[in-house]
């Protein structure tokens, strides 16, 4: 393909994006668009999968059967979200095994939030309310992303997410009506998850390297800072309702902007966790690797069973012919 031809295709592609026509797997797309999407969708998929770990930590210790069933259902949803997203990434020409491999070898990233530990039961509530809440802000935007399979996966995911956030908030609401000790647990969990949740939206717009191109291609439709602000505005009143103090002495309603002002984010902490030095980075990957290794026999058994079923069917058919 010569240069003018490529330029032509790129122009047509951008025109489609500008006209809000979705891009589908077999459509022509710039190599960089494909690569950006594979990176973003697979990171997103890995986040769903690794995100099961901090919650799984509490499954056997849930305080009631009811809470255990709810948590189990939520974690199962997250596994499903991983699947929807891996499938969307596969439509771009990368295999599932490659994707899993990239996660296990540490080549691929996942959301840094899951490198924080879940150390008390209130953390489960905080994760649902804040972490899923922040994810929802991002995912609602992505239901309108320009790549069809990604957008469709997001629609499905968003339908399921709302229960995740609500069960978390309700859990905290219940605890915040309990003993002083339970109230303290809620405040403690909130203190630890508040700032990492704000970091989930990624670096500030000034620092974000991929943002401009992603906005032009309508992979993203809102900037990191816009989404973060929307999250703060939505969440602060919910925290107040729980009787919580936001761990930020600069947080203040700004009448003029019609938004909350909030204090600076510790980006050194953010980058340190991204680079692998968070409290649980190593533990998470080890747990994933262990689950993958210990699941090997299940994959082998399924393969063997399918083979056996195929043979039986073939035998039955051949005797029928005879």
């Amino acid at each position, binding site marked *: 393909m010569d240069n003018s031809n490529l330029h032509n295709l790129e122009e047509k592609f951008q025109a489609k994006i500008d006209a809000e026509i979705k891009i*589908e797997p*077999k*459509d*022509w797309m710039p190599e960089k668009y494909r690569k950006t999407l594979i990176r973003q969708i697979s990171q997103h998929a890995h986040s769903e999968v690794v995100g099961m770990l901090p919650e799984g930590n509490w499954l056997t210790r849930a305080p009631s059967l009811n809470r255990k069933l709810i948590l189990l*259902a939520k974690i*199962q*949803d997250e596994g*499903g979200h991983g*699947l*929807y997203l891996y*499938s969307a990434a*596969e439509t771009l020409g990368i*295999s*599932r*095994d490659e994707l899993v491999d990239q996660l296990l070898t540490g080549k691929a990233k996942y959301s840094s939030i899951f490198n924080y530990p879940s150390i008390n039961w209130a953390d489960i509530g905080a994760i649902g309310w804040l972490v899923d809440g922040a994810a929802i802000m991002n995912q609602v935007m992505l239901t309108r992303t320009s790549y069809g399979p990604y957008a*469709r*996966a997001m629609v*499905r995911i968003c339908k*399921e997410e709302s229960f995740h956030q609500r069960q978390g908030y309700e859990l905290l609401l219940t605890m915040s009506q309990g003993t002083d000790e339970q109230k303290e647990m809620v405040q403690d969990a909130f203190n630890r998850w508040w700032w990492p949740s704000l970091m989930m939206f990624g670096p500030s717009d000034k620092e974000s390297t991929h943002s401009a191109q992603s906005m032009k291609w309508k992979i993203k439709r809102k900037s990191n800072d816009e989404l973060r602000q929307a999250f703060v505005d939505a969440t602060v009143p919910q925290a107040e309702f729980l009787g919580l103090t936001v761990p930020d002495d600069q947080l203040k309603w700004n009448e003029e902007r019609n938004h909350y002002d909030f204090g600076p984010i510790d980006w050194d902490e953010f980058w340190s966790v991204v680079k692998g030095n968070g409290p649980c980075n190593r533990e998470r990957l080890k747990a994933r690797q262990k689950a993958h290794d210990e699941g090997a026999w299940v*994959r*082998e058994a*399924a*393969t063997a*069973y*399918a*083979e056996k*079923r*195929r043979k039986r069917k073939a035998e039955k058919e051949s005797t029928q012919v005879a």
Partner: protein
Amino acid sequence: MSKQDWPLWEVFIRSKSGLHHKHAGSLHAADAEMAIENARDVYTRRNEGVSIWVVESTNIAASSPEEGDMFEGAKSKIYRHPTFYDIPDEVGHM
């Protein structure tokens, strides 16, 4: 057959009797039966379906986007639409 060879299956779900099966997504599985079971577990956890079809992705033949003019013919045939015909109001609903 290793895990790498598990085919990709496209999943179609009928949300309730009387409606078409509609594409819901895809998944890998060792055979059709397991693909249906997996599809039940991931795509119908909230009563989204009463019936599931799975078909190996490689068995789907598809038109290609470059053949965009494949659908050109239909665009000019406006007389195939009811709005093409002017019927006086006095005639009533038709």
